[in-house]
């Protein structure tokens, strides 16, 4: 079925090197060779119908859509993965140390690695997080490090996500869907499993519990059903066997967090929150937030509840901080970065500024504090007038900008509209830190731009995903593969419920289904209106939106 497949442009194709098949894909081609075109089409249809029936969806503007999944998996060989694994671990460790430092003594500033103002001027720097030491020292319980593959085939870090990275649920559902769509092919490979993720996460969350709590109650905090990633929140809560709560289910009393149950209030110790910092607590942040819990931050500062991920992590995945990350890794770990950054100029530096202004029409310019791709200008696609306007903005406040070359993402064969063609992909591996070790889920989410030549992989822009197979080497036995799940603790005993009948304030009872527009809007966690800019594949999905 791969006859007639043509790679195009300078982008690195992960399956073919010209006409030669690359080694990770040997078996894939072999096992797929027998499939006829109509049969593939039938299986693709079954795949899509299955996702709709199961409700594997994401929301855009409150509308549910099935998440597009391409039938052809992406294959990563063991050796390549070993490098990525250690690179992601290294990065997360450095980010942890960096966060611990800047919210404490700030040694990194005194030693001149990064200017203090870079941090203090970041909109994600929250004083509320200063001098708070998490019980097991972890602030980045879950992270997603976005990787791309440059024209030479080398993996590079595009951005770090240490606030509320989303997408891991699709990694798990994709695997199940693809193994039933391509059973022969799946069986012919030794693929490292991804189903152990929820247990790993639960173990890390339990390990993060406040001191003295031996059997912590963990909950997942979701903005609600209108949030784009609600499917993921529900799936994680279900597979971890914990409650999925909304802000209104929680209540703070005397510095402790309780959830409202049919039997009264029950204490909560660890909150895996999928709500952005700004919405978490109307006392400290946005006063109009309906998604948060008044008093939550104070409870966390008092050490009675642990938020995962910690508040204020956003400073570490800021675009300007990203440019310092190689130095930060060298500073804390005395190691060279395993995975390089994409080349980036800090326009604030005089030398770099000159070069950037000269080459404005061939670079991508990003505002450092812009999230969600806002304000990004792609030089080659911009008009003269746009570039002139940009030049003015840069000269006005050069340190608000960074510049990067236009990066071609690598391509992987993808089945679109009954045809096989190269499509651009990126990769988001997920890492879980339990305080002892950073564990990287073998695989991660491969996002694919379904339109031809398109570099934007975001699902909100018509992107889909691919199942990502990390192959186990010959040295790994089947038993080890099977055992590659979580270090499961003893099962949690039934939680102790503190009953207090008079606790719940009974106001007017509401109908079961109310369409609250404002609530819906907030649950999507739309920020204040910002001038629409161009979004590119290089954008940061700010907060917890569909990936």
């Amino acid at each position: 079925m791969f006859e007639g497949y043509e790679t195009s442009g300078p982008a690195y194709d992960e399956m073919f090197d010209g006409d030669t098949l690359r080694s990770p894909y040997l078996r894939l081609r072999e096992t797929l060779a027998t499939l006829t075109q109509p049969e593939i089409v039938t299986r693709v249809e079954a795949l899509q119908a299955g996702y709709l029936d199961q409700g594997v969806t994401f929301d855009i503007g409150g509308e549910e859509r099935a998440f597009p999944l391409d039938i052809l998996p992406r294959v990563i060989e063991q050796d390549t993965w070993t490098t990525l694994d250690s690179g992601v671990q290294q990065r997360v460790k450095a980010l942890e140390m960096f966060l611990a430092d800047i919210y404490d003594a700030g040694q990194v500033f005194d030693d001149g690695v990064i200017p203090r103002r870079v941090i203090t001027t970041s909109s994600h720097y929250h004083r509320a997080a200063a001098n708070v030491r998490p019980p097991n020292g972890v602030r980045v319980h879950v992270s997603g490090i976005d990787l791309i593959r440059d024209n030479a085939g080398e993996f590079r870090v595009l951005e770090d996500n240490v606030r509320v990275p989303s997408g891991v649920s699709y990694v798990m559902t994709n695997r199940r869907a693809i193994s039933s769509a391509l059973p022969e092919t799946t069986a012919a490979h030794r693929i490292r499993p991804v189903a152990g993720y929820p247990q790993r996460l639960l173990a890390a969350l339990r390990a993060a519990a406040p001191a003295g709590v031996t059997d912590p109650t963990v909950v997942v905090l979701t903005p609600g059903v209108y949030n784009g990633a609600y499917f993921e929140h529900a799936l994680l809560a279900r597979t971890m066997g914990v409650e999925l709560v909304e802000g209104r289910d929680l209540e703070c009393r005397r510095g402790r967090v309780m959830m409202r149950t049919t039997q009264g209030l029950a204490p909560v110790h660890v909150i895996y929150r999928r709500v952005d910092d700004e919405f978490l607590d109307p006392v400290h942040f946005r006063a109009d937030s309906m998604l948060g819990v008044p008093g939550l931050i104070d409870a966390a500062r008092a050490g009675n509840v642990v938020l995962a991920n910690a508040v204020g992590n956003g400073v570490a995945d800021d675009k300007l901080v990203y440019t310092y990350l190689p130095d930060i890794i060298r500073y804390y770990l005395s190691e060279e970065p395993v995975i390089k950054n994409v080349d980036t100029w800090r326009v604030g530096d005089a030398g770099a500024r000159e070069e950037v202004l000269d080459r404005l029409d061939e670079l991508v310019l990003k505002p450092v504090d812009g999230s969600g791709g806002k304000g990004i200008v792609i030089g080659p696609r911009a008009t003269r007038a746009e570039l002139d306007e940009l030049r003015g903005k840069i000269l006005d406040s050069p340190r608000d900008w960074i510049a990067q070359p236009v990066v071609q993402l690598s391509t992987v064969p993808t089945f679109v509209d009954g045809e096989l063609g190269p499509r651009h992909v990126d990769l988001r591996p997920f890492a879980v830190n339990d305080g002892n070790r950073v564990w990287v889920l073998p695989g991660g989410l491969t996002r694919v731009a379904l339109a031809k030549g398109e570099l934007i992989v975001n699902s909100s822009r018509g992107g889909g995903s691919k199942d990502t197979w990390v192959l186990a080497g010959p040295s790994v036995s089947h038993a080890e593969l099977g055992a590659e799940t979580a270090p499961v603790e003893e099962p949690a005993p039934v939680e102790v419920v503190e009953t207090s009948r008079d606790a719940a304030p009974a106001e007017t009872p509401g109908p079961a289904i109310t369409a609250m527009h404002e609530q819906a809007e907030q649950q999507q966690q739309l920020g204040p209106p910002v001038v629409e800019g161009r979004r590119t594949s290089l954008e940061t999905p700010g907060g917890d939106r569909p990936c």
Partner: protein
Amino acid sequence: MLSRIAESMFWIGRYVERAEDTARILDVQTSLLLEDATLDVDETCHGLLSIMGVDDAPEHVDLGYVLQTLAYDPRSPVSIAAAIGAARESARRARETLSVPLWEVINTTNRDIVSGRFATRRTPGVFQWVRERAALVNGTADATMTRDEGWQFLMLGRCIERADMTSRLVATASVTSGTTDQWTSTLRACGAYEAFLRTYRGLSTERAAAEFLLLDRLFPRSVVFSLNRAEQCLDNLESGGQRAGIQNDAQRLLGRTRAELEYRSLSDVVADLPTEMERLQRTCAMATEAVTKRFFAGAEALAWHGMGGA
């Protein structure tokens, strides 16, 4: 269990039952209108709409309008389509507590409506389809759910809704009564005709039919049976054994109504069926309110009146 989740479970039970019972009522009425040429279409349709809670119907209505309002139109709050949509929305909110098969059954049922397939189904096949989907949901729940609080709330919702809807079914029968046919179809709609004939040995009178649908202790769709089950669920939810009286308002309301039905003479009850049935429906609404207050009030949104981002 979280109050909010409990509320979702309760409403899944109610909406699924509502979809099913609406289909049963429509099934009877449409076939009656087709078969009995002596019936005044306008009057029957108006009667049906008002029993189902539609007060703002236009002056002249026909069967098409009734079907649109009570079955097909998802924007009409009393339609089958809306009930299924609402059941699915409730299920989505409690998704992490539902078993996967149960979620998928509810979701695929709703897919039929969203995709427009439902609107193309014709009567009476569509009613059959709704009954079957409801049976699939109930059966899947029965086979896969643990008998914990969530189950009790699901059953409670289903039983309260069933008592309410059976009373509406009885009310529709009495509106157009005068023919034994009407009662035969009503019994058929409940799948109770054969059981009724066996129980009353072929002695089919209006009075007997009403008695069977209202008071039979063994027939699962009768009002008394449903009220009994609802009381049981509430009893299970309130674990502390009470030595005297009933503490739960909902239980008290339902129990009192059931006792009244059972202990009054039948002639008294059937003397003015429509009024009697309306009272029953009011009790169901009040019981729902009491359940909400007792168990779900914790889910009330807490308003925070801040002084700006301090």
